[in-house]
């Protein structure tokens, strides 16, 4: 299993994702530079967190034009696994690989804290190691993570079950007080219709070891590794 981690100038979760893949999970790691035009045989492409190109215009708005993104788009079209985390989610939305947009947090402040997520889909390559409607604990760290989509898009997402993670309380109740950023419908992560492109604001790579406060994030990395194995075996 080979994970590709894309590095834009301004990306900073690349090394954390790399650490988890290489040192915790023990899978193959390939960094991909934003100017690369080849995905180097990776089985899953991660767009990590950070401030790609400084995010001076709109988060993710410039990164979508990077040479690597054309290849990521083609890879997704062929059914390849693409996983956008934080800034990566923002880039996927800007690139049109996922619907909607991430806007400024309702608090108007940056937020770095632990959140509880209700896993609404565990039939995906990204979540197969989670149990049905499991509550996982994953930190967020963003200033622009409030998920927004127009009403039609939102109802389409809901009807087709594309909402993967929702902010919830410790018991799994999706309540306003558990929503850290004002996201519509408490949305923390969504997947495309085909189920191969996931975007999420929380950072699973920050909670894949007990000493960092939790290991729920590792379930997502393990899910992907296992999914790739299944493909290889079949």
């Amino acid at each position, binding site marked *: 299993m080979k994970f590709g981690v894309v590095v834009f*100038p301004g990306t900073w979760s690349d090394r*954390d994702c790399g650490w988890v893949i290489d040192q915790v999970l023990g899978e193959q790691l390939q960094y991909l530079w934003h100017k690369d035009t080849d995905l180097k045989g990776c089985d899953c492409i991660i767009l990590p967190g950070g401030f790609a190109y400084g995010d001076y215009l709109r988060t993710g708005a410039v990164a979508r034009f990077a040479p690597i993104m054309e290849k990521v788009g083609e890879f997704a079209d062929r059914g390849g696994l693409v996983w956008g985390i934080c800034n990566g989610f923002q880039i996927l939305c800007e690139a049109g690989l996922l619907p909607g947009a991430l806007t400024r947090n309702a608090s108007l402040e940056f*937020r*770095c804290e632990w959140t509880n997520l209700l896993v609404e889909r565990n039939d995906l390559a990204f979540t197969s190691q989670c149990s049905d409607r499991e509550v996982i604990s994953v930190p967020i760290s963003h200033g622009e993570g409030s998920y927004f989509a127009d009403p039609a898009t939102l109802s389409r997402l809901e009807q087709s079950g594309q909402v993967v993670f929702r902010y919830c309380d410790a018991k799994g109740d999706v309540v306003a007080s558990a929503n850290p950023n004002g996201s519509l419908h408490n949305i923390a992560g969504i997947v495309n219709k085909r189920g191969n492109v996931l975007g999420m604001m929380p950072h699973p790579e*920050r909670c894949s070891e007990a000493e960092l406060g939790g290991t729920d994030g590792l379930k997502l990395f393990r899910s992907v590794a296992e999914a790739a194995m299944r493909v290889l075996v079949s």
Partner: protein
Amino acid sequence: MRVEEKEIDEKRLREVALTPEEYRVIVDQLQRQPNEVELGMLGVLWSEHCSYKTSKALLRRLPSSGAGVLQGPGENAGAIDVGQGWAAVFKIESHNHPSAIEPYQGAATGVGGIIRDVIAMGARPIALLDSLRFGPLPASRHHFEGVVAGIGGYGNCMGIPTVGGEVYFDDCYAQNPLVNAMCVGLVPVHRLMRARAEGTGNSLLLVGADTGRDGIHGASFASVELDEASSERRPAVQVGNPFLEKCLLEACMDLAHTDAVVAIQDLGAAGLTSSVAECAARVAGAGARIDVSLVPRREKGMTPYHVMLSESQERMLVVVERGREPEVAAIFQGWDLTSAVIGEVTDDGCLTVVDGRKEVARLPIPLLTEGAPLRRLTGIAPAARPSLDLDQLPPLVDPGATLLRLLASPNLSSRRGIFRRYDHMVGDSTVIAPGGDAAMLRIKGTHLGIAMTTDCNSRYCHLDPNLGAQLAVAEAARNIVATGARPLAVTDCLNLANPDRPEVYWELEETIAGLAHACRALDLPIVSGNVSLYNDASGSSPIHPTPVIGMIGLIDDYGRRLQAGLHNEGDFVLLVGSSHNDLGGSEYLKVEHDLVAGRPPALDLAREKATHKLMLEAAGADLLRSAHDCAEGGMLVALAECCMLGGVGVRCPALKPEAPVRVDSAFFGESPGRFIVSVLSRAMPEMQTLARRNRVEISLIGLTGGDVIEFEGQFRVSIAEMRQAWEGLI
């Protein structure tokens, strides 16, 4: 030969912040009048901010050597050997004046500057801490919000976690907010770099941002008192670009792949002038030649004067082996960063500046960096501070109600509202997050943990600067010890008012004496630091002496780290250390009796050291389940924090201190050298043995359990009530 002294315009001298006496020294040394460019260069380098002319003689008294010191003061940052081939590089620096004028950018560029200092040592920055002081809220909200947003705006974008710091509010900071930023980095010992301009003929490469007119005279501006015209100095405050600095950081890390780089130097205060002069000054006889026409510029019409004095951010000077410039330039190019060869290292001991073919300045390096005449001022002790007569103090009526009022004091309330605006997790190394005593970062690939903290109680320093400085060192060390780590070394940021006032100079002398004494007693070398004077805006009262102590510590196995919160029921809660009638300068006096009076708590450094030893032995023997140090607010506030952080309460018998200790002192007094720890009941005999052996008093406070703090017959407060008071204020 006596040079004819042309009348020099006093106004012009004031602009470059030089005195007529200093000007005379310059003329004497040069045997000629300096030209405009030279005058500007000397002005910034002879400013207090760069030359330390007022504090230098005193600073020599600080201990700076010791086991494990790889780099003491004089470089971009200090460095300590932490074992297994790693060096920890760290420094704290002030950005007070810019933050007073332009809080967001002032704080942001303060963070940017200290990060570059660590990068220049070849280290990857792993953590940031910020020590902040403001006037009371809500009046100072503008400063507070701007500074907190600026720190987050820069650090969050850099991908460096902001893991600690402190915030205090006091009237004396209303016009003089303090922003001290500390950065800690890691580098393999064999790759630790020094910013020395070695090798005649080697090239000087300027990389990063283009040079603009921003920040000209920033160093001089930081060396005078703020006045009403200060807001006109806004152009002297630089604007930060963290994205550019992030690229600069990664490119500098990539330089480890080549051996073509001789040195890296940050461009901070006094820009190119200072960085080139400092780099050359570190090598005997070295000089440098710079061609300003080769410096990439942001705007048109800049003169050599502007180029040499610009404080444009996100720039680094790299000394490269001659002939290997393309190799290094290619690394920066990979990050879309421009670099330009702007000059070379010489062996004539002079900084020569040319503009194309025309020489525009030529000054001896020693004159620039060491030439400023040291100022020998005389300190006079100020009028005695108000004394405290404990017998006049009304007795404590309801400790529970007092506790809730103290928890709601802005100086003691929860800092979560601040640190959740900072990314404190990026890097996957934060094993103790903000909110407890010290933060801790692991060194990946090892079991080592680096604990880090900043501390200073400036109310103590106001009442007694010498003792206050000692208490700041001891308190920082306690923060480190409370995590199970051993204190290693110190970086200090001395913030004071105008030293030309004899009583302020006295405070500076006393502060440094106290610092030196405590660091010697606790075996803590001071490996880097910064002095910020003139923190007294006209019309405002001078700030309290505020010697902020940044400290790092080491734990061999971070798996054994300790945290403050009580998580288990049925554990014994102990107070380690002795309580006395230490209410002088306490938060209790201020909040309950509106008094700032008395002497700060007496400090016995030998006893302090013994207490640390006991704590580390107990931690090493796995006896402790939690540990928290007692600081402002005393034992009861510390105990309340343990309960709130862990979510478990404590039931205690009535607290009846032995005479002459008063009940209010026992609950809220701030005697140093004390910790609240929890232990398994079966660990008690061993704890007692250790305590006896180290001659440290331990006393049983109560048993963990439930969701209240209760002292039988005295008071009972629920964790929910405490949280209500403690959280959400700032």
